[in-house]
C-alpha cells in the first residue's frame, strides 16, 4: 500500500478542485444560457410557451438532481446515446441550474411595477424595445445578487457528479479515504475546500444585496 502524506492528500484534493471549478463554470454558463432562453419564452406571453416553461421548471425542481444525473448518464447510454460522465454532469447541472434561475429571474422581473410596462406602451415602445431599454436593465440589477447566491448551489451540485464517476473534489475525497483510511481528515479537508469556494460567493451575494437595497 502506498503511503500518503498530508501533503499528498492536500495536493491531490487541490488538483481535483480544478475539475470542480471547471464543472461549476460550465454548468453555470450552460444554465444561464438556457435560463435566458426560457425567460424569453416566458416573456412572449404565448400560453403554449409559458406552459412548456412551467413544466420544465416543475420537472427539474421537483426531482432530485442525483436522479437527473443517473438519467443522463446511465439512462441515455442505455438508450444508445454514449455519453461521458463529464457531459452527463454538465447536461444535468445545466437543466437543474436553468430551472432554478428562470424562477429566480421571474421573481425579479415581477417586482418591477406594472406602471413601467404601461408607461412604455403609452410612449409607443414595442414589446422588445420595452424589454431591452426598460425591463432588462432594471431586472438585471435586481437579479445579480440572487444569481450569484445561486452559483453556490451550482458548486455544491457538482459534488453529485462524483456518484456517476466523474473525478472531481468529492470523488477524489472518497478515493483518498479508501486509500488512507483517514476519513475524518480527508472529509474535513474536502469540506473546507468547498467552503473556501462557496463562502466568498455567499458573502459577495449578501454584499450585492445590501448595496442594491441601499441604492433603492
Amino acid at each position, binding site marked *: 500500500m502506498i503511503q500518503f502524506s498530508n501533503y499528498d492528500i492536500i495536493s491531490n484534493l487541490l488538483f481535483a478542485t480544478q475539475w470542480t471549478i471547471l464543472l461549476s463554470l460550465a454548468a453555470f454558463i450552460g444554465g444561464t444560457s438556457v435560463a435566458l432562453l426560457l425567460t424569453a419564452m416566458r416573456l412572449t406571453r404565448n400560453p403554449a410557451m409559458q406552459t412548456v416553461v412551467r413544466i420544465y421548471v416543475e420537472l427539474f425542481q421537483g426531482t432530485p438532481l442525483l436522479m437527473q444525473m443517473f438519467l443522463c448518464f446511465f439512462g441515455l447510454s442505455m438508450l444508445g446515446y454514449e455519453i461521458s460522465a463529464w457531459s452527463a454532469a454538465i447536461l444535468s447541472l445545466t437543466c437543474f441550474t436553468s430551472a432554478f434561475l428562470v424562477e429566480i429571474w421571474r421573481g425579479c422581473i415581477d417586482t418591477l*411595477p406594472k*406602471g*413601467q410596462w*404601461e*408607461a412604455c*406602451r*403609452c*410612449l*409607443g*415602445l*414595442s*414589446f422588445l*424595445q420595452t424589454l431591452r*431599454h*426598460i425591463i432588462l*436593465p*432594471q431586472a438585471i*440589477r435586481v437579479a445579480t445578487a440572487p444569481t450569484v447566491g445561486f452559483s453556490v448551489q451550482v458548486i455544491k451540485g457538482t459534488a453529485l457528479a462524483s456518484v456517476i464517476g466523474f473525478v472531481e473534489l468529492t470523488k477524489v475525497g472518497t478515493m483518498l479515504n479508501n486509500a488512507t483510511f483517514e476519513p475524518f481528515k480527508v472529509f474535513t479537508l474536502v469540506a473546507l475546500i468547498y467552503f473556501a469556494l462557496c463562502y466568498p460567493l455567499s458573502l459577495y451575494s449578501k454584499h450585492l444585496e445590501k448595496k442594491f437595497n441601499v441604492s433603492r
Partner: protein
Amino acid sequence: MSLVNLHQVHKYYGDLHVLKGIDLDIKAGEVVSIIGKSGSGKSTLLRCINGLEEYQQGGITVDGNEVTTEDIQVRRLALSVGMIFQNFNLFPHMTVGENIMLAPTIVLKKSKAEAEEIARAMLLKVGLEEKFDSYPEKLSGGQQQRVAIARALAMSPKVLLCDEITSALDPELVGEVLKVLEQLAKEGMTLVLVTHEMNFARDVGSKVVFMHQGKVWEEGDSKTLLSDPQTDELKQFIGAVL
C-alpha cells in the same frame, strides 16, 4: 371637429360592468375634467381611450382612428395620445434627459441631437431645464411629475390624458404641477383629466364630466355645471368634496 369620440362604450372586468354605455365627445383645445366617486370608472375610461384596456362594446376613435388594444394600434395611438400617471412611472435607471429622449429616438427615430433639443425644450416648458442630468429619485414628487409631463409632451401628442396626477403629491407640491397644466391649456393643448381639484376644474377647465356608477351622469360647461348641478348625485358629490 371632434378629436376624441366615444360611442356607447361598455367595459366589463369579468362579471363587473364598469362602463355602461359611455358617450363622450372631446374637441381639440378642450380641457375636460372627469370627476366622480371612487370606483365610478374614471380611470377605466381613460385607459380605454389610450388602448391600455380593451372594451367589449361600442367604439372609440381618436383623431378619426379606431382604438383597439392591438399592439400596433396602441403604438400608433401613442403618437397622438399622451398619458400621465398618478405615480409618475418614470424610468428609475435613466436620467431625466434619457427618460424624455427615449421614445423620440427609438419610436420616432429622431437623431440623438434632435431628441436632446426636444428634451431640453420640454424641460424648459415645465421649468426643470437644470435637471437634465439628474436621476428621478433625486427629484421631489412635483418635479418628477413635471418630468413625466415633459416626457409625454416630447412625443407632441394631440391630447394628454392625466389620471389624478396630483393625488400622490404633498399638498405644497400640487400647485407647481397644476401651473404647468394651466400653461398647456392656454397654449391650446387638449387635456382630459381625472381630478379632485374642483377649483382647477372650474377655473381652467372648459368642460366637466361627472361619472356615476359607470355612466356619464351629467356633463356640461365647467362653470355652470359646478355652480348649478342638476342631479342629486352631483349635488351630493360637490357637497362632499368642497
